[in-house]
């Protein structure tokens, strides 16, 4: 077993251990407080934990399958996220070809470009080429009603669901001296820290939450949950330095940056949901809502994490 495989094994063991504890706690809570399934909070907690098992197992399988597995997993995530996003936009008949292009050309091409590992093109394909070509396709149909809103929404959907999300697997393309062959652990670091931060904010908020932090955007988020969650996720991130190319302090700073980005990303995506008058992006994941509800924080932190790591550590 190589060092990378050994670290990965430890990590998987740790995650499954945490989930096992969570499942046990959920089971005990359910037996004690909600034996007839009447306590909505506990039922939701348990369906969330079950969904976590599925997500953890899916990610583990993708990691075992290697680069192609990770790319395919995130391409599917992008597809499902884009489907949720576009559902809530003001599309009109005239956008049909632009949308078809987004789903069936731009998305696959972005992931193909990641496969070629050509940073020069995958980092600008959507911000430059898609940005200019999509409105050209839309304008051909001659429908000017809400034109600016429509093309902006499609571009935003692509940036969030495809471009930003694809920066998670893009971590595999970095060449970091002394870290060869271990890049998949960077993905693990990013996903674990950001998702744990979400979970810990939820837990801290449920336990000690008093003061609402953004009542207009997300009534369940509290100052106590935010501080407790970000602080504890930062500490856990520092403690995971051994799977990264960072020192413990650097790992802690990185963890802080991505948890903050994740938190604010969650707020931005909440604002969009509020604007569109929905509570969740969809219902793909039992207990969590849609895929974007789960991925919003990762999507916002991934490009920043990618570029910070690339700028300071990559050769």
């Amino acid at each position, binding site marked *: 077993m190589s060092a990378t495989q050994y670290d990965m094994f430890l990590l998987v063991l740790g995650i499954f251990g945490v989930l096992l504890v969570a499942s046990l706690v959920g089971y005990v809570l359910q037996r004690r407080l909600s034996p007839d399934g009447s306590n909505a909070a506990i039922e939701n907690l348990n369906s969330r934990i079950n969904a976590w098992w599925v997500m953890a197992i899916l990610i583990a399988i993708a990691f075992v399958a290697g680069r192609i597995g990770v790319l395919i997993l995130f391409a599917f995530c992008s597809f499902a996220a884009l*489907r949720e996003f*576009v559902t809530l936009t003001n*599309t009109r008949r005239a956008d*049909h070809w632009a949308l078809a292009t987004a789903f069936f050309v731009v998305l696959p091409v972005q992931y193909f470009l990641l496969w070629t590992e050509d940073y020069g093109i995958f980092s600008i394909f959507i911000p430059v080429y898609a940005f200019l070509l999509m409105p050209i396709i839309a304008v051909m149909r001659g429908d000017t009603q809400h034109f600016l809103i429509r093309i902006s929404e499609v571009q935003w959907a692509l940036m969030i669901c495809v471009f930003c999300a694809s920066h998670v697997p893009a971590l595999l393309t970095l060449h970091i001296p002394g870290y060869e062959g271990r890049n998949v652990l960077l993905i693990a670091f990013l996903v674990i820290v950001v998702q744990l931060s979400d979970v810990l904010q939820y837990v801290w908020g449920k336990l000690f939450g008093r003061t609402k932090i953004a009542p207009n955007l997300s009534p369940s988020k509290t100052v106590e949950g935010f501080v407790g969650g970000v602080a504890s996720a930062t500490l856990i991130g520092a403690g995971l330095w051994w799977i990264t190319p960072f020192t413990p302090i650097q790992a802690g700073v990185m963890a802080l940056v991505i948890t903050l980005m994740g938190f604010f990303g969650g707020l931005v995506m909440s604002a969009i949901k509020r604007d*569109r008058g929905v509570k969740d992006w969809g219902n793909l994941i039992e207990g969590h809502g849609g895929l974007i509800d789960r991925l919003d924080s990762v999507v916002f932190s991934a490009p920043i994490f990618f570029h910070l790591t690339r700028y300071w550590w990559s050769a």
Partner: protein
Amino acid sequence: MRALIAKLAAEVVLLFARAVTAVRATWHESGLPRRRSVYFANHSSHGDFVLIWTVLPPRLRRRVRPVAGADYWLKSKLNSFIGRDVFNAVLIQRDRDLREADPVETMAQALDEGSSLIFFPEGTRNQTEAQLLPFKSGLFHLATARPDVDLVPVWIANLNRVMPKGEFVPIPLICTVTFGAPMHLASGEAKEAFIERAHAALLALSPKQAGGSE
């Protein structure tokens, strides 16, 4: 062999419908339909009955048959294979002059054989801006012929955005299928009153759409 291909085709259709629409059913609080039912739904796309068919649990799906126009579904060999073999459609003749059998009689017969039906009371695809066209009288005649059968209103949301008229590439968008409370023809209820009640019951299920400006 033909049956095997039909079964395979059905699985492909299911997979495709789910991949494109991630379709989700919202059941009425009374739970899953238990008895023979006529699901009557809004009709804006050729794929409407497929979505209802997709969200029904397999045990109900096996017994449900869409009611469809013979003129469309017998147009070609492929159409006929899909209509008859894959979906086991109850084909009725919409053109009065070509009718050999009474459509209501044909549908009632299918109900008597133990099938449930998917029925579009607007009679044709809605390609207007209106949410729901006025109903034809078919639903009333069916309710009169078989008064004990549950009539379940079903609202299909968003599918018209997935594939608007004249387009052939579907856009993946999340669709929902909402089932309402089963209803019946009240004793002595007049045709107009019943049609209006059914129309209102169906329209009441339409969500305030979050997306789409059309």
